[in-house]
């Protein structure tokens, strides 16, 4: 649940433990990692401003969007970020990550202490020291802590190898002044072992699942497009928390993206109702219920003494369709039918029995033991 993630990030870790870290996974079918990051950012910002959080500052490292986008986002939620804000620093790795733009030609006088241009993204040690420096700028070098948010690690992974990136993230987590870290990732852009490695070093994992499963291009394209359009902004938000004892808490809720951002709601009750009724029956290894067909057949069975005084013909239904008509040829009677002792010819209350041995001719010279081969 998004609320609980936010609370975990806000509260930070305990003394002597690594800081909690969250990986937000999005896919091409549900590309809303940015919305989730924005949601967490606004909540963290408001809690820092209100003084409810253990951390006093927030360092945001932007890779996939410009800093002005985030300032706009926060402004929309009512949080004004100006150059005199003492609680947030933005490291701009979006504008010029590889240092191509000549520094003298640009003028970044506005908000220069707020936004710091970071040029050399491939050097992760330098990035780490810039982050720490920005954080210390906010909260000082003492014991106060700050949060770190990384816009997305897709760009980091593009330029550096996995060991270096995970080294950076683990160094962030183990730094004494950082209370929590979170980052987002698009799983379709990387190999599975890269995603697994990032999940390995984080304590919480959130992933976005679209409502309709992605197609393989085999269904009707038009029908697909309609479904995708309709359900695009909706889906399931699954979170896995690693608990201290070694257990995993799994939570899910539904999300819905609209103009104002992302909205989370608990899972609609359709699925839960079904689950409730299933659990009322005890789990035994035999079937306690009748299916529809079985119920209909049960109704049809006439119990032996039910209609005895009716005067009607007594037809006992034994599951064979041929008796429904009521008229039966009596001549081709197989021995099977005889042995069931069933009244079959509509004569009412009579039992007709033909012995097998009546087929034999009387006083036959055959010795039944002739078959034996001794």
């Amino acid at each position, binding site marked *: 649940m998004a609320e609980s993630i936010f609370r975990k990030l806000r509260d930070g870790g305990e003394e002597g433990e690594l800081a909690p870290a969250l990986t937000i996974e999005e896919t091409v079918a549900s590309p809303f990692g940015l919305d989730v990051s924005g949601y967490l950012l606004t909540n963290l910002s408001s809690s820092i401003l209100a003084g409810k959080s253990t951390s006093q500052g927030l360092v945001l490292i932007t890779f996939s969007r410009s800093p002005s986008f985030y300032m706009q986002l926060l402004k929309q939620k009512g949080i004004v970020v100006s150059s005199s804000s003492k609680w947030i620093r933005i490291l701009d790795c979006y504008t010029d990550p590889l240092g191509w733009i000549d520094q003298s030609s640009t003028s970044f006088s506005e908000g220069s202490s707020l936004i710091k241009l970071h040029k050399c993204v491939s050097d992760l040690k330098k990035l780490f020291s810039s982050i720490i420096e920005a954080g210390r700028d906010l909260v000082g070098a003492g014991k106060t802590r700050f949060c770190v948010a990384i816009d997305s690690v897709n760009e980091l992974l593009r330029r550096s*190898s*996995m*060991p270096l990136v*995970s*080294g950076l993230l*683990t160094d962030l987590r183990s730094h004494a002044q950082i209370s929590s870290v979170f980052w987002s990732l698009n799983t379709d852009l990387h190999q*599975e*072992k890269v995603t*697994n*490695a990032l*999940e*390995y*070093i984080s304590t919480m994992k959130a992933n976005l699942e679209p409502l309709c499963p992605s197609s393989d291009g085999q269904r009707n394209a038009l029908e697909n497009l309609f479904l995708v359009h309709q359900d695009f902004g909706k889906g399931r938000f699954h979170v*896995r928390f*690693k*608990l201290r*004892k*070694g*257990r*995993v*808490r*799994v939570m899910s809720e539904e999300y819905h993206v609209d103009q104002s951002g992302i909205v989370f709601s608990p899972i609609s009750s359709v699925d839960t109702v079904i689950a409730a009724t299933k659990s009322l029956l*005890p*789990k*035994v290894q035999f079937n306690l219920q009748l299916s529809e067909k079985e119920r209909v057949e049960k109704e049809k069975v006439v119990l032996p003494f039910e209609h005895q005084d009716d005067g009607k013909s007594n037809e006992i239904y034994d599951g064979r369709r041929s008796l429904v008509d009521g008229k039966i040829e009596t001549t081709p009677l197989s021995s099977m039918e005889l042995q069931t002792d069933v009244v079959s010819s509509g004569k009412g209350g009579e039992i007709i029995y033909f012995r097998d041995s009546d087929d034999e001719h009387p006083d036959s010279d055959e010795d039944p033991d002739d078959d034996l081969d001794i």
Partner: protein
Amino acid sequence: MAAPNVRSISSFSRNISVVSSPQIPGLKSGPNGTAFISSGIRDLDRILGGGYPLGSLVMVMEDPEAPHHMDLLRTFMSQGLVNNQPLLYASPSKDPKGFLGTLPHPASSKEDKPTAPDPDQGESLRIAWQYRKYLENQKNAIDDYSNDFDMRKPLERQFLSGRPIDCVSLLDSSDLSIAQNHCATFLSKFPRNSSNIASIGRIAIQSFCSPLCEYSEKESDMLSFIRLLKSMLMVSNAVAIVTFPPSLLSPSSSKRLQHMADTLLSIKAIPDGDKELEKLLTGYKDINGFLNIHKVARINTQVPVILEAKTFSMSLKKRRFLALECLNQAPVDGSSGTSYGTSGSCSSKSGALDF
């Protein structure tokens, strides 16, 4: 249904002698000319048929969501230190020595041991049961082979200082050459001669394929390291335990590593607050995770070990003692409760619950 049995998994168990070799404490002779050393967990020793055989490679597949492989490593290392066996420890952290501070101390014999049946119960009730004498014999056997470890109590200094413990950090070099050299020099101290066993070594490598290690992208290097380790182990009197997270490797490399193991275990995390599992298992609240046993080492024989149960629950008895139990299915009407005894007895239906 298998009858509830305190001693072993099946009612029929091969009668392996429990007398430890007189020369070396911590060594037990086993069938087919093998010798065992204890894993540090009594239940695991019993399940594996004695312990880890000398010269074998034990691999543990970690679950990224659960830290229980550390408990296996800790008990292994503590058992070695208690039995005065030299230890080599490698881990992907900058200061591996710090892990030594988390090793558990053996439980003192005065405290209640969880697996011993309570003798006082008989006194108040006067049950005429002739088998009590057999159980007591087993309990009183003095055991210098394996210990029960109290996970909350740190190992005392007497076991740590002055002992030959070598710690290596896997982050030091960009490839595995340093670790390889350490292993080679360590194992050269325990060559396997035909006659007697002088001393036994233990190697513990934690999180071998951790993404923090620079060599973690060179899968062929990692495979050849493990192959080399295994070949060195075969001619030494040592046991190595290596933990690795299989999801961080490509499927083919992960399969190869699993195949190289003599004994293969894996850890699985348990979801918290799962109502279905709670109804299905007794003692769900105490279970911390699951341990699966995929392969048991068999040396000098072609006969495999076929275990009755492959999945065990790891729990802490009295919050201190690590215990492995067969999964007990809850009674059918869904009400929880310990219908089976808490003495670690196994029940059937473990096949249906193969996680």
